């Protein structure tokens, strides 16, 4: 079997998790690699969970939340955007290809967008191969 990347998806409960549900309800299809973890808000997710996922052996991490302005908690995704902008640069500097990390906005009605995003991202990570950056056995 060809290389199957291991992808973790952190989705906010209100928009993106519902968007992923929407993809399911609409019987859309995307690659099976992604494993979804539900969080209340992208602002809840300490970016270090993303770093931790890589250290534990993930090949790609997707974080998705409500579009700017739509956060259920009004401001969570704005804070997330700043934190992830920095984390992105840090991990890239440490040698993790920036293409392995995505912060995106998916609304509850965007099942199609979610499907496209996951497909796109899975292919992108698959092309990069296993993530070697952290190194050694864990």
């Amino acid at each position, binding site marked *: 079997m060809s290389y199957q990347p291991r992808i973790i998806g952190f989705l906010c409960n209100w928009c993106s998790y519902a968007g992923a549900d929407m993809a399911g309800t609409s019987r859309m299809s995307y690659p099976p690699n992604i494993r979804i973890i539900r969080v209340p808000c992208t602002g809840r997710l300490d970016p270090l969970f993303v*770093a*931790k996922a890589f*250290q534990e052996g993930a090949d790609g991490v997707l974080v998705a939340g409500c579009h700017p302005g739509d956060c259920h908690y009004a401001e969570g995704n704005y804070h997330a*955007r700043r*934190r992830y902008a920095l984390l992105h640069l*840090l*991990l890239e500097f440490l*040698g993790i290809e920036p293409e392995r990390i995505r912060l995106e906005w998916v609304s509850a009605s965007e099942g199609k967008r979610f499907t496209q995003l996951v497909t796109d991202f899975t292919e992108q990570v698959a092309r990069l191969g296993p993530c070697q950056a952290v*190194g050694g056995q864990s």
Partner: protein
Amino acid sequence: MDLSQAIRDKARELLETGAVKCVIGYETGTDGINARPAFIYEAAEVDRLIFDETCGHNLATYLLHHRAENIAVVVKPCDSRAINLLHGEHQIERDKVYIIGVVCPGVVGRQWGVKGRQLLPACQACTDRNPVVYDYLVGEPVAEGAPAPAPPLPEVEDLERMPPEERCQFWRREFERCIRCYACRQACPGCQCTECFVERLEPEWVGIRIDAPQNWMWHTIRAFHLAGRCIECQACRRACPVDIRLDLLNHKLAWEVAQLFNFRPGMTAEALFPLATFVRDEKLGVGEWASS
């Protein structure tokens, strides 16, 4: 007047009047060359105090261990930014701290055998010569333009140019050496936690084993916890017994924070930490994927 003498005079006055219980400054170490921190409680002891280019330590860190009493501390410009950082993060009470600021000529690394004269690379590039906050200033203030972030260190730029695999090999070589002594953390004024995440079993952010992935995790979290807060005093680098290039990691993030948010930590105590706020329609290069 000689900087050392000025510090001694001020320290004597502060101790004699009872304004402070202790003056934290520098004294000549046992090797007769390198300075070390000195904690002066008696006016009679002030002559131990010195200031020269080996006075590298960031003494602001020690304020974290002396929160209850009135303390005077000798700070260089970068250390003075640490004071603002601590003040802004409510770690010190400003009126309990008497700040003796020193106009900084730059400092050298640890000297072996004889005193060298080669300033640290960070000091060579540094443009901040005057402390940003002080109660008493030692030395003549230098005329400065608007404070600008130092350009990225050439070594940081070299690393940025490398392909990701090379860069990650570089860091693997660095982190492999780490013996997890946490001296970097102890030296850092930004590390204030009563219990560090690294020493916690649940949630276990970093495994107890000392190996490449766990070391990677430790240094990643340490760097991120200091993102937007590190004032680049080089204390961690100086403290590291295996000479890990923590300065490059810190500098990269400081540079990016300056670029993204136009922010330099510690310039004032009131400035809002960039990760504590946001701008609604800012573009930061994340979350901008447009599906076809």
